[in-house]
């Protein structure tokens, strides 16, 4: 029973948010939003391999529609599933699971017009989300991101500072998720760049990790895909992430 509780706690605490939104990056939110009444289906997959000294391996899959409420505000309804292989730090027992982890609602508000002609070089975006944890019935996750992008011709630089909070009656856990990246239009609709991303625990319930690597983004009509191959900088071996979306 105690082991089971430990697994549950670890799985809950270490569960990562899946991201939403159009982006040139793998781990970072972009500042673009859907046009008014636009609809897009987005999916993303991320691997987090050998976190905390090979104890945890996770693959997250998230899927959900995004709807443009106005030209600057979009609403998302993500659903998240996770496969995990966790070795208990208490007794070294291993548990492999694949489960429906969370669902929720999120809003992304771009503070400047989306039109590239009307927008200033700096475009900020704020994101907030509330998600229900299916595996821990009375737990709720809150997420927030402040994103600032700078555009100059074919270049974009971006900073994303995110925060997450796992709130349950008996425990609270908070993390800071800072990241930054650059992306340059290489040719046609193809962009390349690099980025760095980290998840920093603000308490003792989890450890921190960080990754960095090259990213790639490609748009083709109503379809777009972006991804990053993250090499571990701290407490993770590799952390690749791919996002794709189809607009309607």
């Amino acid at each position: 029973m105690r082991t089971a509780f430990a697994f549950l706690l670890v799985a809950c605490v270490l569960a990562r948010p899946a991201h939403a939104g159009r982006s040139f990056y793998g781990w970072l939110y972009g500042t673009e939003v859907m046009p008014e009444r636009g609809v897009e289906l987005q999916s993303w997959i991320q691997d987090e391999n050998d976190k905390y000294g090979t104890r945890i391996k996770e693959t997250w899959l998230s899927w959900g529609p995004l709807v443009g409420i106005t030209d600057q505000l979009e609403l998302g309804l993500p659903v998240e599933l996770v496969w995990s292989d966790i070795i208990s730090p208490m007794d070294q027992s291993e548990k492999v699971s694949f489960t429906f982890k969370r669902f929720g609602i999120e809003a992304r508000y771009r503070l400047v017009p989306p039109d590239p002609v009307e927008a200033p070089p700096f475009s900020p975006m704020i994101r907030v989300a509330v998600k229900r944890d299916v595996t821990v019935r009375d737990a709720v996750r809150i997420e927030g991101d402040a994103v600032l992008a700078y555009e100059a011709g074919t270049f974009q630089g971006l900073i994303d500072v995110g925060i997450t909070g796992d709130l349950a009656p008996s425990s609270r856990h908070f993390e800071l998720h800072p990241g930054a990246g650059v992306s340059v239009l290489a040719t046609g609709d193809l962009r390349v760049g690099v980025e760095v991303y980290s998840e920093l625990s603000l308490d003792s319930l989890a450890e921190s990790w960080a990754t960095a690597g090259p990213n790639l983004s490609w748009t083709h009509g109503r379809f777009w895909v972006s991804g990053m191959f993250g090499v571990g900088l701290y407490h993770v071996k590799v952390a690749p992430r791919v996002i794709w979306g189809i607009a309607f």
Partner: protein
Amino acid sequence: MRAPAVIALAIGLGGLGLAGTAAADVQAGGRVAGTVTVTESDGQPAAAADVIVYVVGFNEPPSDKVTTIAQKGRKFIPALIAITVNERVAFPNLDPFLHNVFSQSVPRKFDLGSFTRNETKQKDFPVPGVVDVYCNIHPEMAATILVLPNRRHTVVGSDGKYTLDGVPPGDWTVFAYARRARPTSARVTVKPGGEATVDLAIVRGAEPAHLNKYGEKYHDGGQTYR
């Protein structure tokens, strides 16, 4: 080369033509007048409706006015307008259903999203050129915005006649532009207080096919759906 590309080049060169020149002396300007003759591609004469005449080669500041292209009856009304660089265009939806106005033209790409009856969205146009505007929902809707370097432009009357006043003295190029047609042009010399006559002829063709905002063909072979 498609007609819009031709005229875009003409407008662009016209704008550059006065890049180093002082602002046009409109007060001491002259008049350019004439007649535009329109024929269909089969040689039949056509009404000179929706034809714009303009002069390029000098720059002028924009006015404060906002020009309107309404969406009504699954049409853009009017389907052809001319504005000066940095002027604004309003796009009111007067239909009881959604429209999604967009442009993929190089001088001004935009996507207004889908908006409903009595909503209006505006855009400004800071770069000279030809901007083709479509609806992503209704493929039969098409309009053109001529973004010109000066305010010397006018809509030709139903009798084909036009008058441009306040054209600064100098040697310029006069264009006649209509949708579904190659623009035609002629050189003109304007003298202070003088009047120059320029008659132009254009031949209309078929409406060129266009793609939706994702670069795809419209569904159902281009038939309207709501």
